[in-house]
């Protein structure tokens, strides 16, 4: 298993002083665009994802809602989330496909302590290299979208790979291909932004004045974007964060704290050494002799 390729833009657990080889970054960035305004919540993407990736979630229960499986898990990499809102007498059933957003500045990668367990490809895909995953769950805490899940069977982290195995041979992700209403599109990020513009204009012409693109700046933009009819209130879509950012604690932990700790060790060791050199050992035997003398 190769741990490095020239196509990684970033690689977890890798020192900024010794970055991965990444000369080949003049590449088209890919993106998945999810247009929630034409999503019918059919779950084809869920099934296609499970089918292609050979995942089988346990058959669960109905708990009084349409969601099933109820949440993301190591065997469920995408779920439809349903929300009913009623405003001004008009009912809306907001349905959002949830899963990895493939952030440009991935919090999971930042939090991951295992070298090469999380990589960001030059095309924007953030992928977990399970071989290197140690199952610590730091990625879970790094993700602003609550996406990665640790398997209780093999204790490794899992999430959507954007069907990196399909994309790598020139196909689209399974969920994109299967989407009955073309609510999921795939292409270069530029193209997807353009498609989104057209969709937003169309939605605005239908009275959704706040229609917009969800490509949050706080994580450097994402390679999974949403067209929302209420882009001003993303939280309506079952808690899509309005302004997602990597939590500052993660920034501190994986940022300044590390050199501080290193300095702490250095200082402590140095202090001890210097102290020893200055004061020397205190040996009761010598002391005795000193006193005697």
């Amino acid at each position: 298993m190769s741990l490095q390729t020239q196509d990684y833009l970033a690689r977890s657990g890798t020192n900024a002083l010794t970055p991965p080889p990444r000369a080949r970054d003049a590449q088209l960035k890919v993106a998945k665009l999810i247009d929630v305004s034409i999503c019918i919540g059919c779950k084809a993407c869920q099934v296609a994802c499970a089918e292609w990736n050979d995942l089988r979630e346990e058959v669960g229960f109905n708990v009084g809602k349409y969601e099933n499986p109820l949440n993301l898990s190591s065997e469920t990499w995408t779920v439809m989330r349903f929300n009913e809102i009623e405003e001004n007498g008009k009912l809306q059933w907001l349905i959002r496909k949830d899963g990895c957003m493939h952030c440009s500045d991935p919090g999971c990668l930042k939090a991951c302590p295992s070298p090469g367990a999380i990589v960001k490809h030059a095309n924007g895909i953030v992928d977990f290299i399970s071989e290197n995953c140690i199952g610590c769950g730091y990625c879970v805490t790094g993700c602003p979208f609550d996406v990665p899940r640790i398997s209780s069977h093999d204790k490794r982290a899992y999430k959507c790979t954007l069907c990196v195995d399909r994309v790598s041979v020139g196909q689209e992700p399974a969920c994109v291909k299967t989407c009955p209403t073309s609510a999921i599109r795939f292409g270069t990020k530029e193209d997807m932004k353009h498609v989104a513009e057209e969709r937003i204009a169309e939605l605005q012409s239908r009275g959704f004045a706040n229609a917009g693109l969800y490509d949050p700046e706080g994580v450097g933009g994402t390679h999974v974007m949403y067209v929302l009819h209420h882009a001003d209130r993303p939280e309506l879509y079952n808690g899509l964060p309005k302004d997602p950012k990597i939590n500052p604690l993660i920034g501190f932990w994986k940022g300044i704290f590390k050199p501080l700790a290193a300095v702490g060790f250095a200082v402590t060791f140095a202090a001890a050494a210097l102290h020893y050199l200055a004061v020397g050992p205190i040996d009761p035997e010598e002391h005795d002799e000193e006193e005697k003398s």
Partner: protein
Amino acid sequence: MSKHLVRRHSYVARVGHWLTVFSFFVVTLSGLAFFFPSLRWLTAIFGTPQLAQLLHPIFGIIMILGLCILFVKNVAHAILDKDDVPWFTNVIEILKGREHEVVEVGQYNAGQKMLFWTIIGLGAVLIVTGIIAWQPYFAPLFPVSVVRLCLVLHSLSAIALMLGIIVHAYMAFWYKGTIRGMIRGTVTRKWAALHHPRWLREIEKGEDAHSSRLSS
């Protein structure tokens, strides 16, 4: 009791200490590898990084068990009291190696007592945060924000603990004759007289009473 030696640490206390030391090293090596990915190679001593991740919390619990023993054994002697005040006022002199000149230490000096409470405190934080962040068993039961906070607190306390332990180990190294106390359980009366004269007096007082009882 020998003429030269006095018993300082019971067998149970020594086992507790070395159990703690051993497990501390294990968790530290793996923990450091998790904290500094460049030290990933440290996990090799466990076989694989995955095993390191698996064993880290288990040795953490062992370390906490060791600490519990130490706590039970030592807590009575670790209460700071007014006799410790001079130690603080003379800390510079002490660092210069003139402790015996400026204070008269009992069983533990104030620095040791503080270290004790620091270790116990950090140990408590480590075990609580460690369990909350333990994947895949307990972490999924808590909100991500709590787990995240726990992980950061865990690493902060771990680093603090490591620094504390370095100081602790250095002190043991600096005060020659200390380490044998923790290995063999006994220290020389000279050592005791130098570092813990008040404690030695109390011991000797006890010995006198004992021998007079014997002789009477």
